[in-house]
């Protein structure tokens, strides 16, 4: 079994297989010995690798010169060649292999191809792993239209969340009239979704992947200037990006006459100033222009009239980071990963009630169950999974019954959520879904720019109703109003922020309506999150009379003698929950 993973192939494992097959035939062993290629098993550092079965002998660091000896000694005479074997240290390997660990085994690193392997502040290390070779290939051997076609053929779709076909956007910008005034490419690095850090990680770990993508894109579209809009709350990413750009300029990979091709292109960085709405592309462009970050009606789309009125192609960080490898390995290769409509991989930030919090890159089409349980390691403390929130404040909550949903653009939006930029928040039984909707609405309400009435007034009203419900003051009439408001805001808001702000409400109503009704009709929050709906009582059998709760209670609502069971006076209780938090004997219960 000859390993044919990328690393081994680049170390000539195909040539080794050829030599092996030839040598086997030379000795007439072809009917006894089969040569098969396998995928990567993670031991890339000692490749090229080969395993001989059923002997279970593991050969490493092979060269073509080793093959004749190996075939003669081991396959013909049955004597494994010790010199070429992998010898584990002393005892049996005490530590599991990377590929045996769920977190790593299921991931497929395309965007994150340099993860953990390069110093992002050294351009030479990026080049050592084939960085900028795609750009060289494009500038010297491909016409701009060919590059656009390659991206179209790859099936790459925008990774910022909406999933618009990237190649098509490039083509539209390429064809737009510019009146000789120039065109722009733009990178949206504003990443505002709470809990999302994919773009931050990509820029911190591999800034050149984004730069190379943008230079290739600019060439394809006919742009001579680029803009990166990065949120100011990412100081490390910003610094690494600046260093990367300086180093690229030193090498003439940005600036005039790139790689001697005659193509000129450079990039300007703009920092955000704390507004979530500036992740919306027209607001982003207004901000770059120095104007107030507010969206505007479309058409005209930025591909026609973008930054300073010029045709602009705006893509997300992750989208740009896909471009170099697509050009290097081809649209055909890329389009074989993923599903029919969603090609390639997606990077997710897996957070919340999950054992393995971190950054994961998976092929499209993997199921939510695999991400949460195989990669994420399941829910900590033995708690029960309740829902997974994807797409941030624009997305929705997907319940347990739908865990076998494949992750791709269409499946997620059919379920009422969306792919979003990649934030994936896992929620367990201790989460109140009404409170989750309230949390996201509070966020979008705060971030609403105020320009259009549906968003400005609509989100404020929805938040007001959700606040009432979580305080136990909601009515069924409120629920009807909430739902119809949600639909109206979706239809009429000016931009994506407003249009998608109702999504958390709509999905929680769709899948967790019973929780809303519990809050309204039974004044109950089963997750005990909405404190106004909690009743705190003391269990006599457990109470030791230590008096701690009585001393902590800010309202003096707890009474009892030392070493005697205590009681809570409900008329004085303001439901702050302090007694529950401080009791060490599990004597305070929430009913």
């Amino acid at each position, binding site marked *: 079994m000859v390993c044919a993973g*990328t690393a081994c192939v680049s170390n000539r494992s195909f040539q080794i297989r050829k030599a092996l097959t030839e040598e086997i035939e030379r000795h007439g062993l072809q009917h006894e010995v089969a040569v098969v290629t396998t995928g990567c098993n993670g031991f890339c550092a000692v490749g090229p690798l080969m395993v001989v079965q059923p002997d279970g002998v593991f050969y490493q660091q092979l060269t073509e010169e080793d093959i004749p000896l190996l075939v003669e000694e081991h396959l013909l005479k049955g004597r494994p060649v010790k010199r070429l074997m992998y010898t584990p240290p002393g005892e049996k390997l005490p530590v599991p292999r990377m590929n045996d660990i769920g977190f790593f085994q299921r991931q497929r690193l395309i965007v994150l191809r340099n993860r953990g392997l390069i110093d992002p502040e050294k351009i030479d290390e990026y080049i*050592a792993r084939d960085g900028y070779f795609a750009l060289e290939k494009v500038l010297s051997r491909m016409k701009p239209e060919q590059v656009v076609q390659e991206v179209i053929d790859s099936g790459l779709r925008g990774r910022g969340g909406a999933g618009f076909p990237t190649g098509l956007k490039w083509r539209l910008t390429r064809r737009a009239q510019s009146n000789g005034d120039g065109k722009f490419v733009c990178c949206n690095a504003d990443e505002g979704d709470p809990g999302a850090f994919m773009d931050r990680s990509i820029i911190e770990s591999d800034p050149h992947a984004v730069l190379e993508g943008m230079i290739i894109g600019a060439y394809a579209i006919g742009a001579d200037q680029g803009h990166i809009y990065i949120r100011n709350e990412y100081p490390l990413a910003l610094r690494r990006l600046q260093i990367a750009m300086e180093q690229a300029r030193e090498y003439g990979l940005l600036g005039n006459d790139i790689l001697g091709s005659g193509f000129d292109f450079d990039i300007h960085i703009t920092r955000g100033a704390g507004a979530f709405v500036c992740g919306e592309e027209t607001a982003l462009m207004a901000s770059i222009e120095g104007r107030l970050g507010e969206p505007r009606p479309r058409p005209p789309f930025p591909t026609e009239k973008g930054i300073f009125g010029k045709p602009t192609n705006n893509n997300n960080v992750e989208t740009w980071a896909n471009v170099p490898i697509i050009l290097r390995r081809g649209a055909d290769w890329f389009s074989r990963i993923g599903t029919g409509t969603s090609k390639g991989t997606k990077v997710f930030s897996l957070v919340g009630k999950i054992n393995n919090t971190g950054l994961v890159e998976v092929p499209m089409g993997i199921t939510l169950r695999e991400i949460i349980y195989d990669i994420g390691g399941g829910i900590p403390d033995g708690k029960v999974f309740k829902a997974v929130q994807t797409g941030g404040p624009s997305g929705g909550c997907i319940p347990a019954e739908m865990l076998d949903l494949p992750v791709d653009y269409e499946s997620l939006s059919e379920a009422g959520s969306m792919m979003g930029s990649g934030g994936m928040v896992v929620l367990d039984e201790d989460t109140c879904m009404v409170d989750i909707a309230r949390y996201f609405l509070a966020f979008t309400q705060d971030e609403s720019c105020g320009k259009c009435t549906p968003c400005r007034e609509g989100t404020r009203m929805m938040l007001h109703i959700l606040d009432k419900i979580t305080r136990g003051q909601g009515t069924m009439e409120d629920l009807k109003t909430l739902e119809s408001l949600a639909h109206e805001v979706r239809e009429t808001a000016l931009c994506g922020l407003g249009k998608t702000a109702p999504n958390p409400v709509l999905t929680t109503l769709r899948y967790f309506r019973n929780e809303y009704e519990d809050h309204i009709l039974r004044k109950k929050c089963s997750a005990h999150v909405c404190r106004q709906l909690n009743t705190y009582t003391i269990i006599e059998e457990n109470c030791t009379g230590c008096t701690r709760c009585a001393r902590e209670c800010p309202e003096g609502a707890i009474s009892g003698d030392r070493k005697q069971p205590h009681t809570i006076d409900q008329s004085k209780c303001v439901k702050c929950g302090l007694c529950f938090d401080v009791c060490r004997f599990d004597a305070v219960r929430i009913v």
Partner: protein
Amino acid sequence: MARLTLEDLKKIKQTSRRMTSLREGAGRAKITVHMGTCGIAAGAREIMLAFLDEIERNKVQDVIVTTSGCAGLCSREPMATVQLSGQAPVKYIDLTDEKARRIFAQHVQGGQIVADCALAVGSERTG
């Protein structure tokens, strides 16, 4: 400003690999401390200093210490990957100054993987 050509790119690739790849003789061992925001927030700088300190105290010349971005498993930072020439890399997690120094002595100098600090052996599948 250097105007690179394809030949220059290839030369840079070769030189860089010679300096950073153990396979191409860059050193006997390589320690990569993962320094994304997650790692730094968890204390990766102290881990880096611990390794550098051990190298200086032991007057070691053939061990490379370098950094990279986030390794992916943010909840187990600080993390470092230790690779000895001719062997698969080992990922260490939940590091402290004490663990880093122990790993240096036992694994980098002594060749023995420190099982109680290690997560896994091997590389991720890329591409």
